[in-house]
């Protein structure tokens, strides 16, 4: 009823298409949404900002019909709705484009778009639909080959299929869950153009993000969630600064400057020569990668997800065999050697999967931090682990690295992402590594924790460690790295020393450095 009034009283403004009121959603042990109100006007891009775990995705999954709220009301175009499945939400015109694309990799673009629809009734005459879908895509300026299988498409193209899927269902309210997380800079530009075009045609878009600069660029209005509560509701994006947004997200001031000291790199610590390796499917993942990392420098590896970064990190850290090529650590050959061999020679590893590779979730923090030290005295006493020494060591790390834990006997699985990552970093750094391979060290962490982790990496750089930083966050790579290599389909496209984001972007989409240089000349 109230929604109705609002709808009319602001008749000079664009109409409200979605209104969520007093939404509460609990998960075991977490209050994900705590009395959240949210309002979306027609024809706007409304950014929903917040750290990981702030409740953005939960709120939007409720709007998309995937979860049911414990309390609260949702009005769509003035009408009270109760969604019991995504199908209901789609019928009401709400389509969600998930962060992990909801596409069946082995099926074609057309099949993915038709999936779950009532037409065709029984027999799939795909050839008829190919034409229809190509024309439909053209209308929105989204070029796509309807016959291609999803796994053959780039991430940017897959996202286009996701958008098309929703438009084809007649969605006029699109929820985009961190749509830029997996895209190269040029693809992000293309996405933004598409979004603006859709808005100009009267569609409304909710843009979920935790990246401030993107929100400032694309959004008309911003709402901020922090720990399940709304801290800013529909603020115009024009009138707000980055610092203010960050404060609303985190609840405290955040420094955006990292002091990176000028320093000359030392000797070559990691040398990778013509490395070849296969992925889990047995297809070539690395096709002749060569790179070097020197002492006291951070070398970034940029690339769109799935171009061989994971395999490269695994081969260097000894978790995957290479089929060809050589890896030298301080001049010593560690190619296809056991992991312990490389660890003894100064390898530290911050793996991508911090909950299963980085730690053992059911073991205590003490057990997790002594994993690289339990064989040597003082923690090892012959065959026995000296638990007093182990606890002391754990206490010391917890204090030094400011890790928030109830006790050192707490199982690792109960820690938050940021604290878990600090446990891993503490363990790896305490061994004074010569080489530190860090894969996505800040992924999924809140702004405050990211800052802490980045500082620790810079400290290691000053202490003379060679750091290979593999990340999909370009901003992070550019601010931390001394040099950046770009990987594409298992090959190094080139190396950037000045942090030129356009050159990096071009290489991320497959243009080698030589071509870019020729283009300039």
């Amino acid at each position, binding site marked *: 009823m109230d929604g109705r009034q609002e709808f009319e009283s602001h008749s000079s403004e664009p109409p409200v298409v979605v209104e969520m009121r007093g939404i509460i959603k609990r998960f075991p042990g977490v209050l994900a949404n705590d009395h959240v109100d949210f309002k979306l006007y027609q024809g706007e891009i409304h950014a929903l900002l917040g750290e990981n775990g702030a409740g953005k995705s939960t709120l939007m999954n409720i709007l998309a019909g*995937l979860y049911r709220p414990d309390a609260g009301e949702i009005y769509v175009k003035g009408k009270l709705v109760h969604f019991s499945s995504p199908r209901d939400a789609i019928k009401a015109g709400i389509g969600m484009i998930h962060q992990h694309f909801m596409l069946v990799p*082995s099926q074609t673009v057309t*099949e*993915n778009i038709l999936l779950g629809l009532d037409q065709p009734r029984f027999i799939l005459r795909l050839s008829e639909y190919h034409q229809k879908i190509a024309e439909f895509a053209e209308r929105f300026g989204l070029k796509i080959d309807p016959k291609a299988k999803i796994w053959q498409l780039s991430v940017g193209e897959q996202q286009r299929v996701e958008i098309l899927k929703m438009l084809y269902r007649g969605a006029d309210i699109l929820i985009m869950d961190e749509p830029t997380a997996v895209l190269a800079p040029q693809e992000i530009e293309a996405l933004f153009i598409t979004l603006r075009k859709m808005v100009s045609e009267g569609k409304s878009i909710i843009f979920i993000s935790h990246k401030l600069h993107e929100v400032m660029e694309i959004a008309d209005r911003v709402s901020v969630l922090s720990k399940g509560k709304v801290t800013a509701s529909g603020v115009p994006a024009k009138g707000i600064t980055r610092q203010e947004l960050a404060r609303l997200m985190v609840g405290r001031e955040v420094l955006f400057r990292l002091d990176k000291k000028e320093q000359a790199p030392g000797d070559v610590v990691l040398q990778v020569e013509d490395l070849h390796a296969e992925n889990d499917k047995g297809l070539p993942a690395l096709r002749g990668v060569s790179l070097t990392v020197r002492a006291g420098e951070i070398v970034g590896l940029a690339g769109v997800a799935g171009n061989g970064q994971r395999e490269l990190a695994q081969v260097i850290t000894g978790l995957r065999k290479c089929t060809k090529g050589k890896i030298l650590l301080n001049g010593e050959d560690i190619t296809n050697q056991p992991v312990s061999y490389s660890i003894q020679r100064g390898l530290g590893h911050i793996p991508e999967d911090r909950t299963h590779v980085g730690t053992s979730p059911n073991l205590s923090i003490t057990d997790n931090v002594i994993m690289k030290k339990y064989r040597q005295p003082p923690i090892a006493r012959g065959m026995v682990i000296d638990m007093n020494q182990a606890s002391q060591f754990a206490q010391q790390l917890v204090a030094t690295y400011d890790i928030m834990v109830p006790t050192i006997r707490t199982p690792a699985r109960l820690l938050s992402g940021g604290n878990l990552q600090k446990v891993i970093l503490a363990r790896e750094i305490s061994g004074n590594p010569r080489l530190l391979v860090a894969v996505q060290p800040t992924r999924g962490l809140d702004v405050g924790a990211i800052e802490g982790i980045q500082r620790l990496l810079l400290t290691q750089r000053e202490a003379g460690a060679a750091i290979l930083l593999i990340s999909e966050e370009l901003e992070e790579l550019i601010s931390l790295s001394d040099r950046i290599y770009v990987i594409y389909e298992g090959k190094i496209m080139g190396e950037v020393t000045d942090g030129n984001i356009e050159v990096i972007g071009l290489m991320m989409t497959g243009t080698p450095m030589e071509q870019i240089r020729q283009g300039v000349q």
Partner: protein
Amino acid sequence: MDPIIILQAGVASGTVLLFATIGEIFAERSGVLNLGVEGMMLLGAMSAFSITVKTGNPWLGLLVAMLAGGLISQIHAFISIHLQADQVVSGLALGFLATGISLVLGEGLSKAGTVSLMPSFSIPVLSQIPIVGPIFFTRHSVLTYFGYLLIPAAWYYINHTRPGMNLRAIGEFPAAADTLGINIYRLRYFYVFLGGVMAGLAGATISLAIAPGWFSEMTTAGQGWIAVGLVIFAQWDPIRAAFGSYTFGALRRLILDIQGPTTILGLRNPFYYNPYWGFFLQMLPYAFTIIVLVIGSREAIRKRLGAPAALGTPYIRGERGL
């Protein structure tokens, strides 16, 4: 040792594997691995034979066998879909249960004597084609002919119909199907049921057509396991499954026949003079099954073979994107 006769008998006995394999393909394409095929087949064979003995109507026997297979499969469906238990364990348990029920209810059935069988006939015109005619279209059971129709039908259904597209989607990436409003649980129950029906049909095909009678566990003699192996060998494709089923059927027959003559190609037949060599041959299909299952259980190889990506994993909404 007439090759035509071996192949003809191979097609007949391969029909059993064909039904069971295609049924399991449907279940696995939906994401549910059911290792209870052998047990469900035995239940089908027992109920088909038992009903036919009592009523004299093999068609009724066939129907009951299919229903029995379908119904008992729902235990596995409930445990693995709703309770999200390990599919391997649940499937094995189902197999034991179904085998046990069959043996108890089939007690004394082996002395039942003759029953009226499924009709056999030759197809006019087609049976006159040289070589192909005698192998595929002469004096076969009606079930064998049904098998011929089933192969393209199953292939077409999976690849060229809307429900088939949904089936592939829920086995590959159920979350995507779920966000588009496809009811994953309902479909998985249905395809596990279909797999059970087909296993029941396969069992009935043995006891009513291919090797009539009831011989306790030896009725199916591990063919359900061969079917499970064939699914992997066939890479979840009905046409390849047909090829594998008929080949294995012919192999079974060849292994029996090769022990008969005293000479082969003018040489002393070692299988005649050393009868225990025949046991070795008889073992081969099962050894093949073990090898295929071991290879197929490796994640990397499964991916390469094109296994449904979600095979063996229960679907729980909200695991992603939370």
